[in-house]
């Protein structure tokens, strides 16, 4: 794991834009000084969705793209439960209590010339900033993105602008029918590094598909503090019987083969 001691801030940011970009999928852009602390694609922020005790806890959301010039960043999330549905009600101009940046992102430097970016559902967003960063370094990126169905697909065009992009949908309503692994089965493994974010079964399938490759995976766990203090989000590791990592502060990105999920 990579430990970057960036400064964590809590800021009352301003919402610049919020829009529904796919079925229940929202793109939310906020502005504020906290943006300046961001150090790598794949970091996340911890959002307080209401100034109320209900819902009580913050919600972790990945950073999907950063606009340092305007001190803005964008998140993409699915309005699913109580908290994210409340978040979806917010409008441009509203204030948003954001804690971050949190965690360590994807190690952009590890890729050599070509990378596979493999994402599933709401695991896709952090891969977008990652794709931009890799492209900037001259690394070719291929994007393999899985969604439920056509209506839930987002950012296809944006990814296409950065490299070859393959879409899989569970019901086959767009792109390949099935999971990202169905796409991967048919692609030559002509990359040096893969990066992946999505549901745990997907991460496992991806790791199993490329046991010999260098890979980095972003994990999810239920969180409370988001900063490493509460031990809510631990995972065991393959290092030893007693070794563990905290997804929030040691992760959420880990090298393939490290985390036992």
């Amino acid at each position, binding site marked *: 794991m990579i430990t970057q001691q960036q400064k964590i801030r*809590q800021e009352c940011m301003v919402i610049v834009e919020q829009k529904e970009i796919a079925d229940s999928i929202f793109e939310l852009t906020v502005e504020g000084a906290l943006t300046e602390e961001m150090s790598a694609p794949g970091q996340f922020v911890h959002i307080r969705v209401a100034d109320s005790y209900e819902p009580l806890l913050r919600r972790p959301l990945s950073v999907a793209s950063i606009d340092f010039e305007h001190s803005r960043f964008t998140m993409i999330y699915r309005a699913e439960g109580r908290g994210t549905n409340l978040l979806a009600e917010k409008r441009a101009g509203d204030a948003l209590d954001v804690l971050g940046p949190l965690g360590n992102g994807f190690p952009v430097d590890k890729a050599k010339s070509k990378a596979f970016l493999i994402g599933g559902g709401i695991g896709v967003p952090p891969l977008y900033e990652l794709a931009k960063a890799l492209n900037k370094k001259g690394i070719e990126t291929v994007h393999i993105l899985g969604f439920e169905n056509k209506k839930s697909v987002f950012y296809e065009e944006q990814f296409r602008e950065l490299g070859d992009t393959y879409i899989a949908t569970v019901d086959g309503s767009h792109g390949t029918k099935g999971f990202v692994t169905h796409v991967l089965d048919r692609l030559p493994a002509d990359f040096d590094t893969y990066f992946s974010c999505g549901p745990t079964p997907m991460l496992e399938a991806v790791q199993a598909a490329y046991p010999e490759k260098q890979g980095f995976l972003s994990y999810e766990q239920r969180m409370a503090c988001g900063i490493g203090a509460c031990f*809510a989000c631990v995972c065991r590791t393959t290092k030893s019987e007693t070794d*563990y990592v905290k997804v929030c502060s040691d992760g959420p990105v880990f090298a393939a083969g490290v985390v036992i999920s």
Partner: protein
Amino acid sequence: MIDTTVSLPGLELKNPIIPSSGCFGFGKEYARLYDLSQLGAIMVKSTTVEPRLGNPTPRVAETASGMLNAIGLQNPGLQKVMEEELPWLEQYDVPIIANVAGTTTEDYVEVAKAISQAPNVHALEINISCPNVKEGGITFGTDPAIAQQLTQAVKAVSRVPVYIKLSPNVTDIVSIAKAVEAGGADGLTMINTLLGMRLDPKTGRPVIANMTGGLSGPAVKPVALRMVYEVSQQTSLPIIGMGGVSNVDDVIDFLSAGASAVAVGTANFVNPFICPEIVNQLPEKLQELGYDKVEELVGRSHRLCVR
């Protein structure tokens, strides 16, 4: 000048605000956010003889105005706490309250004896009330006789004053408080979490892997306040009160109910700066209420309500 200091057995506190055990690790994470020397004291994570890996995940679940946790006392074990965590905290001018957990009396004694020797440990908090560990802990907190014996055993070996952390999951918390007082406790800390559960309505499965967990946060404050109010009138032990404290008014409430100082747990997760924020707001709040000293406020509700 408003006097926010509080004098308790073993503890000379700058102010009555203390992050509660398990919600603040060993301070390292919050030290990235603010200077820990601002705090009244720090209650560090429960320490056991051996390192513990804790329970499977998910370990937390949100509930209405509260949360459940079943961390399972994950901690690096006594040796690492003594060699790494506590020495690291010495850079701050803040007394440490070391939280001691175990499954047998011997466990508690071993940890208490060793950890009370650490130079910055000014008091022990004996966690006899963790609801998330199968093998024990909770029985110590629910049976007055066992609680008393454990208190005696720990007192016999501790170099510093001993506070017993009470469980709210009891019929009669006053009887437990009196028992640990008889056992020689120097103070009480209360409350630990209420045992609760959340299910996923889609599947019927508990959200927490451990099935049940400890309820904390604003939801439990009324229960905590009632217990502090009762216990403070029926024992002479000082109390560090906690349970849902989320703002300076909550601190006032706990002091009014009879707590001498206040611990903040879950609220750290909602606002990681909450402790220093309350520390800063407290003098003005006291002034507004017409008090010069924190200690004047302690137990004012008792004096107001004579049944």
